[in-house]
């Protein structure tokens, strides 16, 4: 069995940041693996550990810089990775769902997986559509926002999160694409042994030409027109921690505001 996991290195914005035209200046960005993808990787690795002869392949669209992030997925148990990049991507502000779908579908056509796992969405552009669009392109069955996954012979039973707290249990025929929700498992840390082994695993640098595609794949009807910081109308204080701790903090605030004063 082969599982293809799509992963993305996303930009995380620091608390203080500067907007530069339609992007955020590089100095206020840090790069990390997309949170949802971390759960998708864990789901795939768990399936591989439980089964015989399961290969987990990660695929990403990203520049050379992203290799370190992808290497972390390899350190957590992914067998090898494919990194697609091309000069054509360099000048694109926004890679839309269709472009990503075309690229990932071309990789999937080469890899011929039985199962594709993606994160529900990417933390930076948050389209939340690539997984399902990929299923459509490949003609695979699919389920989105999956928070439980049991793999059978030719089917998978999945639990999906719907709106309003409703959950759906459903059987999906394989091959299929599942978009994985956070919380489905507890992503592991990379072990130091895993980090060491990951240095020897393959990250295949792949160009558009290698996939039978060309620069036209990045063309898009979508355009990023403006980037701005919404004005805040009031401040929010968020208490974190268990009920006891947050209740105590709330009590302090109320007391400071004069509630309960004699």
């Amino acid at each position: 069995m082969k599982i293809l996991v799509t992963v993305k290195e996303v930009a995380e914005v620091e608390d203080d940041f500067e907007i530069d035209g339609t992007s955020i200046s590089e100095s206020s960005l840090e790069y990390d693996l997309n949170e949802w993808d971390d759960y998708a990787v864990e789901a795939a690795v768990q399936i591989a550990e439980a089964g015989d002869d399961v290969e987990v392949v990660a695929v990403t669209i990203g520049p050379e810089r992203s290799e370190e992030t992808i290497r972390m997925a390899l350190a957590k148990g992914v067998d090898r990775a494919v990194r697609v990049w091309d000069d054509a991507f360099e000048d694109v502000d926004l890679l839309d769902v269709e472009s990503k779908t075309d690229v990932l579908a071309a990789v999937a056509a080469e890899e011929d997986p039985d199962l594709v796992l993606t994160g529900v969405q990417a933390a930076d552009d948050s389209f939340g559509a690539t997984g399902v669009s990929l299923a459509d392109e490949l003609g695979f069955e699919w389920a989105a926002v999956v928070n439980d996954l049991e793999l059978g012979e030719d089917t998978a039973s999945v639990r999906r999160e719907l709106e309003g707290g409703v959950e759906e249990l459903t059987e999906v025929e394989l091959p299929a694409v599942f978009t994985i929700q956070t919380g489905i498992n507890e992503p592991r840390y990379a072990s130091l042994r895993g980090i060491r082994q990951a240095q020897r695993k393959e990250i295949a640098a792949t160009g558009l030409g290698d996939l039978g595609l060309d620069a036209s794949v990045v063309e898009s009807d979508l355009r990023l027109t403006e980037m701005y910081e919404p004005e805040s109308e009031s401040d929010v204080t968020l208490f974190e921690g268990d009920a006891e701790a947050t209740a105590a903090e709330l009590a302090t605030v109320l007391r400071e505001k004069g509630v309960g004063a004699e």
Partner: protein
Amino acid sequence: MLDYVGLESDLGEEERMVRDTARQFVENEIGDDIADHYIEGTFPKEVITEMGELGFYAPNLDGYGLPGLSETAYGLLMQELEAGDSGLRSMASVQGALVMYPIHAFGSEAQKDEWLPRLADGEAVGCFGLTEPEHGSNPTGMETKAERDGDGYVLSGSKTWITNSPIADVALVWARDVSEEDAPVRGFLVETDREGVTTNKIDEKLSLRASITGEIGLSDVYVPEESTLPEVEGMKGPLACLTQARYGIAWGAIGAARDCFETARDYATDREQFGKPIAGFQLQQEKLAEMATQITTAQLLAHRLADLKERGDLRPQQVSMAKRNNVRMARDQARVAREMLGGNGITTDYSPMRHMSNMETVYTYEGTHDIHSLILGEDLTGIAAFQ
């Protein structure tokens, strides 16, 4: 995180990944609970096997399933663990540098096969018995003795200030083999369930509270010949281990100091008095400038040590210099950080006072600050002050 002269930008990918993994682990698994453990005087035992699964014990050794990472990666790991708490780094130091290292360096194949994988996974816990109630800075004066008895030895004596002895499965005990001429010091791997072994816990510590400390009592404990470390004799055995552990401490202290610095910087830029953040006042800026400078120079020393160790040129006296300097630095800067936090700084909500108090232990364990001065003094003058 403070990296003022960009030392970390020269790290290899593998080293950065080790740093990031350790940092995340400490932040997620240790961060919120360590202050409670500190108050209670307990160690978060669940992390023993977690750290084992992640390969945090002796990752700079190879073979026997150990990853054989660079000395820099190992140093970074110690740094990140001690940014959490000195108790956490002490756990990893003792298990890795003081128990696994000597087995790896001086043990028999059978000892390596039996102990290294279990210690690496954290399934077994080890401790290191050198210090005695009457012999601290001068371990050569040790009284614990081993006497030949048929195919084995009988051990008697007592050891104290032994990290993890109450939870240890095996103690590496250093004792004088009185059956031989000149009674050379030898190492013995003593399972703590052997008859005659006691491991009392030392309570009521005011420092390094999130760490388990105890004694080892040896009352005519029989161990077979196979329990001795075959490949070393004399004080160079325990001293070689201490060099390994002190190397980790020189790195670890930077982590504690860095955590103090970051806490103080965050606090000072957030806390407003007289209409602006206190970080805007010259007095606080001078403290931050000095703290950052001291941490940066300690980092430079640690990174240089790593390079020397990697190529096999590191001398124990150089480790003494780094341990001496970096721990003193952390001890001093933790106090400055606490001071910047005002009254809030004396609560467990903030880390500096916990680090400050931990550093009192670190300052005098693994060779006191003063003993390291004398080691350097001897190296620089050729005259030993302690003989």
